[in-house]
């Protein structure tokens, strides 16, 4: 079994509310993440996904239970910076994450704050930009870039800190389809070539379908945790908690209702087309 890099142990979290009882956003959530895996987290709005993301690098601290990042407890204030350096968080809105007027300065921003030597910063910035395929834009102004390009710059800024875990909180929600593909394929490449661990929170089922593992959240709890094939087999349950399944799975399910059974749960149209051809 691969090394566990992230461990969420019986975590609960609640938000203070002015007039009522505290709002419980997470209830007794537990899971481990193995090094190098790509884990998607899905759930409707208010299911607790974003709260969970913020607990994973110590932006929020659990009210109960604990979160271990590479064995470091997020409650331990002395470890906060080390934890954040190792578990980088990419948010939804690209415009809220870039702070400087030149791309490479933005990527260097975190490193300067860590007190890295200028020569080392140069090397790390170049490597990070290359890793997301944005080296040609090192001197560009962030506001002239597309959404997908901006998100890749935000990712480069985090990569430069050399983290082991990347957490994406709906980082493709504001992008067009091309931007979404750009970002997702850049992240997949990093996960595969640099052995990074990725947690990918999304509303897009076709993105979740590409993960190694899918965690489904509802009402602050984990309700499913399995491979995409096994998760999307449970289409009826997913619909009950206001989630969707990929179109290919929907069609397969409708065919089944009409009495035609495919030999697999087709994730993606290619898989569906092949399964249909096998029927012929």
């Amino acid at each position, binding site marked *: 079994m691969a090394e566990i890099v992230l461990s969420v142990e019986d975590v609960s979290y609640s938000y203070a509310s002015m007039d009522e009882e505290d709002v419980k956003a997470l209830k007794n959530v537990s899971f481990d993440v193995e090094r190098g895996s790509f884990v998607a987290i899905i759930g409707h*709005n208010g299911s607790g996904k974003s709260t969970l993301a913020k607990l994973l690098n110590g932006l929020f601290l659990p009210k109960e239970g604990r979160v271990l990042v590479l064995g470091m407890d997020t409650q331990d204030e002395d470890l906060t910076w080390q934890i954040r350096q190792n578990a980088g968080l990419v948010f939804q809105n690209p415009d809220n994450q870039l702070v400087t007027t030149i791309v490479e300065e933005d990527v260097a921003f975190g490193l300067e704050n860590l007190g890295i030597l200028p020569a080392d910063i140069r090397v790390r910035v170049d490597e990070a930009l290359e890793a997301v395929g944005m080296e040609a834009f090192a001197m560009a102004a962030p506001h002239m870039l597309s959404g997908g390009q901006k998100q890749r710059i935000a990712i480069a800024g985090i990569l430069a800190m050399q983290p082991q875990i990347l957490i994406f909180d709906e980082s493709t929600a504001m992008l067009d389809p091309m931007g979404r593909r750009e970002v997702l394929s850049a992240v997949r490449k990093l996960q595969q070539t640099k052995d990074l661990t990725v947690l990918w929170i999304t509303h897009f089922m076709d993105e979740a379908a590409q993960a190694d593992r899918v965690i489904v959240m509802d009402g602050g709890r984990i309700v499913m945790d399995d491979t995409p094939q096994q998760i999307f087999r449970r289409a009826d349950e997913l619909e009950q908690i206001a989630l969707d399944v990929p179109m290919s799975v929907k069609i397969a399910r409708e065919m089944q209702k009409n*009495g035609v059974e495919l030999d697999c749960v087709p994730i993606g149209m290619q898989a569906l087309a092949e399964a*249909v051809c096998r029927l012929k």
Partner: protein
Amino acid sequence: MSIEVKNMSHIYMPGTPFESAALVDVNLQLHEGEFVGLIGHTGSGKSTLVQHLNGLLKPTSGTLFVYDVELTKKDADMKFVRSRVGLVFQYPEHQLFEETVEADVAFGPKNMGLGGEELTACVKEAIQRVGLDYEAVRNRSPFELSGGQRRRVAIAGVIAMNPKFLILDEPTAGLDPQGRDELLELVQDLNKSGTGILMITHSMDDIARVADRILVIDKGRIVMDGTPGEVFSHVEELEAIGLDVPETSRLRMLLEKEGIELPSDIFTAEEAASYLCKLMGGGSHA
């Protein structure tokens, strides 16, 4: 005819080194009560185009008629045009500003001269039309509502002006699957009650299912204009200009290579499944 665009071009920052043509010789007619989808990748000119249709931008050249008002004329009645054509921007909930939902929705119609009972009735109707409970939300701060509800309030603020044509710029962006479905239903309901719709979107599965007609824009030009079935049969051309196609169109293309024909106007899972089942000779032909 509601809106007619003739040979319209728009050039940003003309005469500077940053000069760029955002729209090139666009010709377009939008009809009463139509549901039209506008697709194109980021930077193709979609938003520039729709901002002309209620007079927020003026064309560099060409003419533009909105409900018989020639917008390009100096003395065009802009107030009239904006009461006819409502524009819902991307992430419209970012533009809420009033202390209560009711006051926010009332802002537009009030500026159009409505007052008293007439105003209250129109605000109430708009809030109900977007599927919110008027009594429950009227005195709440818009900022206490969920993201999906805030977006509805913002849309209510535009509907309250009773536009004949409603333009929506990616109304489902950032919503979860249920929020997306609910918002689409709302837009379909508005259309059924006679409001013309022009919707910018990146969700091809959705727009193929709900629109009567699809416009494709690329580099500032309208490059396709037809029914969803016609437009989305051009999978390779659309992909070449950076666009997605509905999942069912992709399936159609994949199956075609294997000698299995799927009609080009099938866009729902149910239709695709029942067609495939018939083709496979199995299934209950109920």
